């Protein structure tokens, strides 16, 4: 042991040493708090780390340990240890941020677990050292590897140290009211240099589905519920032994009894009323088309099994009236599960402090970027569904993102170069 040249045994000893030191730190100072690395602490730590790596590179001829860092014998145990700790992280249920670990060692908060952090730091140091060595002796065949190492070094350092500077806040917007206040991760109110006015929130839904539930209300078959999709082209289908036909398809419907009551009510009142299940049971007139708030799809369905036919209305209901199913027999009911959104979007006007305003649409997967904030469609009033007049946005600001992206694109380039190299590299 420790006779030169060092081998895997020494490389493994280093990772085990780091694990022991990590455990000692874990017990003495407690888990690592990433929040401590807010600007400028993260920049200072990064500068110190990079100087250490450059210094180690400069002293590599004199200090064997620094030379060893760029060897496979150091890299393999470091990678294996990092992989192992990551597997442990995958096997243990991780506790969300802001809560203490659920186990005595801290494995359920792996990102704050010192041995995990130290092993990743060691791995990152090796990656940095190798990058410098490959830069020092430029060689065409090593370019894919150099690009990958450099990119990985940038991503590992900037993503971890930069995470403390990332801000994630939530903004609740009601139709027509400009909003500039947000709730941060600790639910504290903050004011932003920009305001968002929700002009219209909309949901497009997938066509309604029909499924059969048993008397306990469980969809059948229990393990993999079967359903039929009632789109505009729907002619009829078999669900278990029932032949299902749709006699009438009303996209926006309310119970007839409710429509009658609503007739001469003020609009504000209609928005607040709710028909209960008793009202629903008394509703003999079925459903009629209604182009207003609270409407939902209703289907008049005919189900036939062995010559016996039952007919009735089926709807998933809305926030203004309860669902209605069609009893097929004593133990089976045909129901419409809640509609699944295909797309939800907010038409908004965004105002900035310098007096500019922009009209845009924000939807899932299509965030909007303004004044270094990215605005994401997060949620809405789920009880009201497509009639929601509330839209919830998440606003994210990550000043380190350009650096992280630069690293990500470098790793991507490295992977592509590696693929090209492997594809053109023939045996001998």
């Amino acid at each position, binding site marked *: 042991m420790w006779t030169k040249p060092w081998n895997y045994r020494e490389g493994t000893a280093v990772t085990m040493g780091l694990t022991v030191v990590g455990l000692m730190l874990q017990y003495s100072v407690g888990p690592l708090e990433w929040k401590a690395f807010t600007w400028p602490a993260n920049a200072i730590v990064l500068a110190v780390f990079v100087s250490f790596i450059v210094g180690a590179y400069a002293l590599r001829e004199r200090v064997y340990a620094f030379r060893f860092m760029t060897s496979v014998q150091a890299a393999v145990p470091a990678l294996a240890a990092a*992989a192992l700790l990551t597997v442990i992280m*995958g*096997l243990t249920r991780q506790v969300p941020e802001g809560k203490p670990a659920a186990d005595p060692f801290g494995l359920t908060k792996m990102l704050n677990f010192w041995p995990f952090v130290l092993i990743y730091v060691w791995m990152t140091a090796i990656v940095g050292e190798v990058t410098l060595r490959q830069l020092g002796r430029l060689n065409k065949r090593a370019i894919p590897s150099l690009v990958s190492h450099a990119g990985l070094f940038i991503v590992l350092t900037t993503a971890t140290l930069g995470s403390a500077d990332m801000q994630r806040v939530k903004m609740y917007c009601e139709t027509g009211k400009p909003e500039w206040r947000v709730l941060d991760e600790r639910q504290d109110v903050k004011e932003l240099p920009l305001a968002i006015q929700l002009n219209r929130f909309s949901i497009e839904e997938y066509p309604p589905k029909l499924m059969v539930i048993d008397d306990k209300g469980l969809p059948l078959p229990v393990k993999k*519920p079967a359903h039929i999709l009632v789109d505009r082209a729907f002619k009829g289908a078999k669900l278990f032994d029932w032949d299902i036909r749709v006699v009438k398809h009303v996209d926006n419907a309310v119970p007839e009894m409710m429509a009658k009551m609503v007739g001469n009510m003020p609009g504000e009142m209609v928005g607040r009323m709710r028909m209960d299940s008793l009202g629903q049971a008394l509703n003999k007139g079925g459903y009629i088309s209604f182009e207003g708030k609270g409407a939902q799809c209703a289907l008049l369905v005919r189900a036939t099994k062995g010559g016996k036919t039952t007919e009735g209305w089926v709807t998933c209901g809305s926030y203004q009236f309860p669902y209605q199913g069609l009893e097929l027999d004593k133990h089976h009911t045909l129901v419409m599960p809640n509609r699944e959104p295909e797309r939800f979007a907010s038409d908004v006007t965004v105002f900035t402090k310098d007096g500019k305003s922009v009209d845009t649409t924000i939807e*899932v997967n299509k965030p909007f970027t303004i004044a270094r904030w990215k605005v994401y469609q997060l949620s809405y009033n789920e009880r009201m569904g497509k009639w929601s007049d509330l839209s919830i946005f998440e606003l994210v600001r990550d000043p380190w993102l350009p650096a992280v992206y630069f690293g990500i694109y470098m790793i991507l380039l490295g992977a592509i170069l590696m693929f090209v*190299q*492997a594809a053109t590299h023939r045996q001998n």
Partner: protein
Amino acid sequence: MNWNYFIFFAITSLLFWTAGAWAGWKGRKVAAFTTTGCGLLVFSVFIILLWISLERPPLRTMGETRLWYSFFLPLAGIIVYSRWRYKWILSFSTILSAVFIAINLFKPEIHDKTLMPALQSPWFAPHVIVYMFAYALLGAAFVMAVYLLFFKKKYTEEPDICDNLVYVGWAFLTIGMLFGALWAKEAWGTYWAWDPKETWAAATWLAYLVYIHLRLNRRSTVKTALWILIVNFLLLQMCWWGINYLPSAQGTSVHTYNLS
């Protein structure tokens, strides 16, 4: 087009691939290329028609990803064959593909058209397709490792084939993972959230790096490297579908819509 027709396409493709495997075994290059190519063509027609009829890419359920896997295995097989002319590789890829086709035939899942808004993104198809191709290549490397460790036992240049499969497979694994990161930023606001699937993807990615770096040292024993390939492939399975059953991932992963 729906899954009811899958059996016809699958059997036609499998017949072509079997013929290709036989031709490969006999050293008939042209026949091996043509028949395997025809099989891939028939199979891709099914995928395309299914894509059109679903009105979304068939990449969401486990059954749909298995479909891509059964397609990419013979593709990876023919690529390896074109380079090294290993007469057994097409038989292996055909058998593996047949296993995945059989799972899809005997364990059909309910397939529906709906796709939640978070999955509707131009990143969706490249992210999953690149991953499936990586899985197929790394699966081929695993098969090779098993073959060398337990059947052939004496080997000279074969470990280099493993290296090449892993290099290309790892490159695709990297691209798939980073596409996922870039997409996640657009969909959820962070490029990496240590979601259980991401954690396992990172572990798998690091584990293949262990293999790649170990093989850089020519004095290391090949046997250790081949065993690492076997362990890594198990990690890959965990990442692909294992986490759907893993207690630690239940209810916390945004990636568990595969089963619904």
